[in-house]
């Protein structure tokens, strides 16, 4: 379980990147942080990952601060905005990296790399170099690298933002399957309303200037969600609600700025 207790971020120059956030995430949830750029969604994600310290407040993962996550028996991995692969290393070498850094024995690592690659459907590309793969396939390698340590929590920072819509929809669908199969907890950052509705059990809506959480919306629709869900009336209802929520926040922000 992840608890964010009035965690906030202020940069040394006084910019409020994120006003205090309170959020509880249960095991097995698929949470998206949805908002425009500058709303602090990536900042919040990096704070959960321990890549950025919170200025104030606390973040607990299974009752421990992030640097003690090992003691909880849980593992966390992070998937970046871009595939972030090492160009000099083959696909297998890239996926293997977290295991090598953590000192997993070679034979054990081989097996886990193969398992992980087959989970994302890239077994055949074991020995390819990243540049030989399409953008979508590179992202799959990045996800395989995230899965190879058998994490229970995966943090994803707009992972499919740079991909075309068709590829993105396919990867969204595959990600949901992985999430169900591996019983993961996912925190997913996006600026796409449609991606948020399609994926999430719960959407955390955020606004910019200052970065803050404005609403939490539970998407009470059953899984598995096939492509037909994207064109259902239920889907449209959620999308409309989120759209209005985001618009209200941004109008209010402009009014406030106008007043100054």
């Amino acid at each position, binding site marked *: 379980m992840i608890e964010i207790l009035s965690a906030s971020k202020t940069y040394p120059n006084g910019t409020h990147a994120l006003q205090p956030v309170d959020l509880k995430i249960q095991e097995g949830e698929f949470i998206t942080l949805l908002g425009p750029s500058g709303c602090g969604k990536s900042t919040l994600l990096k704070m959960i*990952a*321990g*890549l950025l310290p919170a200025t104030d407040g606390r973040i607990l993962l299974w009752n421990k601060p992030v640097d003690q996550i090992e003691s909880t028996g849980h593992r*966390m*991995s*992070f998937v*970046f*905005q*871009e595939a*972030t692969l*090492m*160009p*000099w*290393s083959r696909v297998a070498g890239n996926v293997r*990296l*977290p295991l*090598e*850094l*953590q000192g997993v024995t070679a034979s054990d690592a081989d097996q886990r790399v193969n398992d992980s690659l087959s989970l994302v459907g890239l077994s055949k590309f074991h020995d390819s*170099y990243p*540049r030989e793969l399409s953008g979508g396939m590179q992202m799959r390698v990045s996800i395989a690298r995230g899965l190879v340590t058998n994490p229970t929590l995966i943090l994803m920072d707009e992972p499919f933002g740079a991909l075309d819509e068709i590829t993105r929809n396919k990867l969204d669908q595959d990600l949901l399957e992985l999430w169900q199969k591996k019983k993961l907890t996912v925190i997913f950052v996006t600026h796409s309303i449609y991606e948020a509705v399609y994926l999430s059990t719960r959407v955390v809506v955020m606004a910019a200037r200052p970065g803050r959480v404005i609403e939490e919306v539970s998407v009470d629709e059953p899984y598995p969600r096939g492509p037909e869900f994207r064109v259902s009336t239920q889907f449209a209802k959620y999308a409309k609600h989120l759209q209005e929520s985001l618009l209200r926040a941004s109008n209010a922000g402009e009014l406030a700025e106008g007043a100054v």
Partner: protein
Amino acid sequence: MNTQKIILPAIVAIVLIALWHGMVKAFAIPEFLVPSPGRVAETLVKDWGLLGGSLYNTLKITFLAFFCAVVLGVAVAFLFVQSKFIEAAFFPYAVLLQVTPIVAIAPLIIIWVKEPTTSLVICATLVALFPIISNTTLGLRSVNPGLQQLFKMNRATRWQTLTRLRIPSALPYFFGGLRISSGLALIGAVVAEFVAGTGGTGVGLAYQILQSGYQLNIPRMFAALLLITLTGVILFLLMVALSKWALSWHESELSNEH
């Protein structure tokens, strides 16, 4: 593609040599001004005993200097990336070394260092050093921030980050530095030989050029010049091949099929 890369320059070379030959004959240019290409080739063969030995000496200085520049340059670059402090303190002096003309300080070095080979190697090293320092430093700093965070999240040690992330990231820059530096090592060696003049025991190609100038032996001068140029080209091609081999994964070495 590859044939084009070889055939086109070859055609240019043939045309230029033919023109050279034609002009020398047509205007009956005396040999002590411009010798014909045939005469230069003839001298090259005839004086090979002299020129070959000098080539060996110049090559020796060049390679020793290149080697020293690489070792020293990489060491300094590693020192620089250890802390911004060290870099801020010493980088201006690296620039100072780079901008001071070697001809101006070579006489000093030759006076201070009695042993001729050592003094020549020092001069040439100074010329070849800077591109290695600046490129390697830049490379060691040019690490993908995402990968850096990934290493951090997986609790990578400093050593792991260095060997698995920083060094591979720096390689393309390092090889760029090698290409520039190899040519500079040769230039440095030749310049230092010019300054040293007859002071050296093992004479190099620059000395042959000086001597043939005094003796108005222009064909030999051309032949020595030709050897220097060829050495430079071969050095460059060697570096290109080396970086192609080491950077097969890098975009800069991709063929056009992508």
